[in-house]
């Protein structure tokens, strides 16, 4: 018998309060500059109450929903990535030591409280689990990331009102949260009382639900939650065929279609910055002017920059064609070979926040359609002339 609970928005408020009392920095969706983004929250009042959104290629608009929904919008501009893999992080500092022992290196382990998320999108939950696998479950672990993730508490939420740019259903990453959350919520609005159907996903999730006094859900509660999920599936604006993505993208290596994408792509890096699974980082080392103290920082990097592939003498990927190809091929194809799953969770952020409105689902469909034809027309052709940037 599955343990399913139900509580009202006061129960959600209590949940946030309990987490805060237990020492968590609690993050949830907030409205900032009229855009939903995850930020620190102290109570339900900090959530985007009654707000929805409209997302389409290169377009994001916040809107009033006309109801009291707390989670009635699609993907926030940023995922949970910024909390677990910060965009700029001090790794260590060094100061001159004595001549015999050399510089003294100190790791900067901030006395930071563990992070809790309340209202993490199902797509973003899937992305967190992907980054866990990439950054902590391979030959070498990212120590700083692993530390932040180890203590984190995740309350995920079913996406009830997906956007035109959403396609998580294609990837099996939503609209309902999969495994990995401590608690999964479904918000029910306008179908009986405003309430949250909650399923614990871990012992501490169960314990939290007990602590806030969440009672058992009725059959009708469960049925209402299913209706939310089913309606969301039918309202996704996009889909992505996932069969043979490796074959399609490998076969497209020399496709002329990259020229067509590069005509539009500004190589601005927006897609990689908003992507919840993109994990590339770079290292910056700096010293003070006296040459004494030094520090190492790690910052987000993007495969759309020329610098990303620079080795002495020049960059490997000088053209925008090659850089877009690298991004989408990694995301959808080589990611599978490397990590065992598609690197896309269907959140649609790269479509919404691309200033040129480039839509990876459309680009893949074009490559898929042109698959065989392109091979013959381009295989022996010249490489495209690099675009200056």
């Amino acid at each position, binding site marked *: 018998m599955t343990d399913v609970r139900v509580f009202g928005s006061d129960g959600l408020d209590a949940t946030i309060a309990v987490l805060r009392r237990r020492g968590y920095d609690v993050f949830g969706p907030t409205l900032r500059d009229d855009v939903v983004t995850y930020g620190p929250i102290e109570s339900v009042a900090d959530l985007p109450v009654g707000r929805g959104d409209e997302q389409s290629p290169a377009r994001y608009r916040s809107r009033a929903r006309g109801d009291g929904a707390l989670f009635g919008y699609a993907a926030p501009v940023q995922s949970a990535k910024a909390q677990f893999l910060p965009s700029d992080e001090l790794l260590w500092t060094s100061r001159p030591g004595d001549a015999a022992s050399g510089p003294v290196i100190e790791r900067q382990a901030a006395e930071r409280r563990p992070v809790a998320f309340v209202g993490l999108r199902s797509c973003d939950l899937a992305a967190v689990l992907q980054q866990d696998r990439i950054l902590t479950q391979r030959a070498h672990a990212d120590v700083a990331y692993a530390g932040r993730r180890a203590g984190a508490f995740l309350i995920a939420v079913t996406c009830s009102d997906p956007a035109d740019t959403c396609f998580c259903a294609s990837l099996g990453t939503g609209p309902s949260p999969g495994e990995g959350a401590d608690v999964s919520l479904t918000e029910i609005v306008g179908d009986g009382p405003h309430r949250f159907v909650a399923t614990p996903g871990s012992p501490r999730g169960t314990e939290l639900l007990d602590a806030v006094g969440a009672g058992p859900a009725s059959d009708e509660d469960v049925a209402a939650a299913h209706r939310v999920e089913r309606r969301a599936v039918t309202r996704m604006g996009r889909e992505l065929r996932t069969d043979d993505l490796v074959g399609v993208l490998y076969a497209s290596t020399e496709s002329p279609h990259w020229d067509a994408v590069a005509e539009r792509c500004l190589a601005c890096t927006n897609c990689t910055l908003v992507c919840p699974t993109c994990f590339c980082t770079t290292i910056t080392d700096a010293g003070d002017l006296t040459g004494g103290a030094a520090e190492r920082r790690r910052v987000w990097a993007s495969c759309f920059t020329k610098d990303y592939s620079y080795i002495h*003498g020049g960059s490997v990927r*000088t053209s925008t064609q090659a850089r877009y190809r690298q991004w989408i091929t990694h995301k959808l194809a080589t990611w599978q070979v490397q990590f065992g799953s598609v690197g896309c969770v269907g959140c649609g952020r790269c479509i919404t926040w691309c200033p040129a409105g480039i839509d990876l689902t459309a680009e893949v469909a074009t490559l898929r359609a042109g698959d065989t034809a392109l091979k013959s027309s381009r295989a022996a052709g010249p490489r495209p002339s690099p675009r200056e940037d």
Partner: protein
Amino acid sequence: MQTIEELLRAHPFFDDFDPATVALLAGCATSVRFAPGEVIFREAEPADAFYVLQSGRVALQVHHPAGGALVTSTVEHDEVLGWSWLVPPYRWTADAVAVAETNAVRFAAGCLRGTCADDPAVGYVFLRKIAQVLAHRLASANRRLLDLYGGGDRP
């Protein structure tokens, strides 16, 4: 002491020639030896010979604008020296200087050209072998033009 015919048959350049042809060609040839520093031919002079190297090393060099000469490639045992004798205007395109004690078989160009003209089948084999030498030398020069180890910036 090997005969010229034996020297030729042992040389990879003549792998594709039948023995009778090699014997015929040997009639155009003499054995020669060059001391280190000895000039074998000079750029722009009439290309009147073809050399098959048995040992040693010959530098092909072009005059450097700043004076002196730049060695653009070297030829050694099992290789051949000179292709200009085969194609008009029959003038050398570089200087050839022995940089080591070098033993070679020298063919008189007129005799070879006559043999090729008389027997187009032999001429074709010669042309194909020389084209191979040229193609190899061109590929080698092109790759070196990239200055791969010099740190030249990528284009």
